[in-house]
């Protein structure tokens, strides 16, 4: 337990010590909120779909969590290159706990970051249909953050340097974002796209945020949480296995 805590604490210390990182990670979601929220808002409305910001904001939350979490997970590569990883690998503690602590830390950072995005969205005019739903929404955000931080850690455990990172970003993370229904409603897309969205974990995350904040979900909240929880557990198992096998 103390191992999980100390590794979590380390992620916190690193995060709050670098304000530039906090600001930089807010730039992208903010840009999307502005460009798409205001840019597409009118067209969306004219198409008879209603308030685009109400639809878009949960998607942007998903985006923010996806990117911050994957980056946090892949920070492992950084630790490997700069050596700190060795310190934790040689320590007389369970590597599973080391990984759980790192992952929980990364997920906390991503959730915190997304909470700032949520506040910004509210300033831009986004209104949750029920303010009390912010609490379960935060829990859902943490669950999604755990999922993607674990995914990032799992990949990072199998990579030894940054060369594979760009590939993962382009072929996995970007498609996961764009095809998840974060930007467009899934009930009016061609079957192929709908199929892809169904195997994209982010779809369920964004859908859960929409269900909790907007009051209407595509898959249903029960399905969303079940899928997210199962995938997170599977990834934790795969990630711990890969992490336990890392050689220095």
């Amino acid at each position: 337990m103390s191992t999980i805590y100390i590794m979590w604490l380390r992620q916190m210390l690193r995060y709050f010590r670098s304000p530039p990182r906090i600001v930089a990670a807010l730039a992208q979601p903010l840009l999307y909120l502005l460009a798409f929220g205001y840019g597409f808002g009118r067209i969306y409305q004219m198409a008879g779909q209603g308030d685009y910001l109400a639809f878009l904001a949960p998607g942007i939350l998903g985006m923010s969590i996806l990117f911050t979490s994957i980056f946090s997970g892949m920070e492992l590569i950084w630790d490997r290159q700069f050596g700190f990883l060795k310190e934790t690998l040689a320590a007389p503690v369970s590597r599973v706990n080391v990984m759980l602590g790192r992952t929980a830390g990364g997920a906390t950072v991503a959730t915190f970051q997304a909470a700032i995005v949520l506040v910004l969205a509210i300033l831009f005019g986004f209104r949750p249909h029920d303010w009390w739903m912010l609490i379960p929404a935060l829990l859902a955000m943490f669950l999604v953050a755990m999922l993607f931080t674990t995914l990032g850690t799992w990949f990072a455990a199998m990579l030894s340097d940054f060369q594979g990172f760009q590939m993962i970003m382009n072929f996995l993370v970007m498609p996961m974002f764009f095809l998840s229904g974060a930007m467009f409603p899934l009930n009016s897309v061609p079957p192929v796209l709908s199929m892809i969205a169904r195997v994209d974990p982010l779809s369920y995350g964004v859908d859960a945020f929409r269900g909790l904040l907007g009051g209407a979900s595509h898959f249903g909240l029960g399905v969303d949480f079940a899928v997210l929880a199962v995938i997170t557990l599977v990834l934790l198992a795969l990630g711990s296995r890969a992490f336990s096998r890392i050689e220095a």
Partner: protein
Amino acid sequence: MSDAMIEVIDLTKKFGDVTAVDAVSFSVKRGEIFAFLGPNGAGKSTTIKMLTTLLRPTSGTIRVNGLDPHKQALAVRRSFGIVFQDPSLDDQLTAQENMEIHGALYKVKDAKPKIERLLKFVDLYDRRKTQVQKFSGGMKRRLEIARGLLHHPTIIFLDEPTLGLDPQTRNQMWAYLHEMNKNEGTTVFFTTHYMEEADRNAQRIAIIDNGKIVAMGSPAEVKQSQNAETLEDAFLALTGHSIREEDASSTDRMRTMMRGFQNRRR
């Protein structure tokens, strides 16, 4: 309990076609101070990594404290401490925080006063709240050593611990290690490029070259076997005068890259 703290038989490690460690056998006695010497790329660090559970051997047997580092990794990790050759600090954190994390990972009891004492010992106490990235190379090295000494293991591995250290710190570190060795029976296994340091501190040494052990014994025995005045002469007689190339690791390349970035920012 066997007399040997480390027992290595026919240990081999291959990276692709390259044999980094080639059927090496040696043993280190409980409570011994043992130096592992060799030119760059001879296989010293690879051997240490296999002894400390960080790398799986290709073949051969290892026993550390009677345990197999591969099959009983956690139990082996409980018995040793290590000071790495390359940096292993979190440079976004402060000196104090690096020490505290180590204390938590190694479950050091009553860590606070020990951390204070060790930071004073390596003359970093006044800078304890400074982020490690602002430290000079020598200061980072001193911090790594202080951290490595925070918990008192049965066996301590030091991979070129004194590289870049001033003689003052070097001597203090050795005084500390000798005390630990005497009072607690700690086994010390270290590598170094300073032959004089090995001669002065080690009870026994092994010289490894191209993955094979070429000499082993007390410093006096090794000198005698080569009819050499100093250990350095004996070392050169055994390993030749040509300078070894070491491939830049991806870490080195990355550091160079980072330095490039940082310079550009300034």
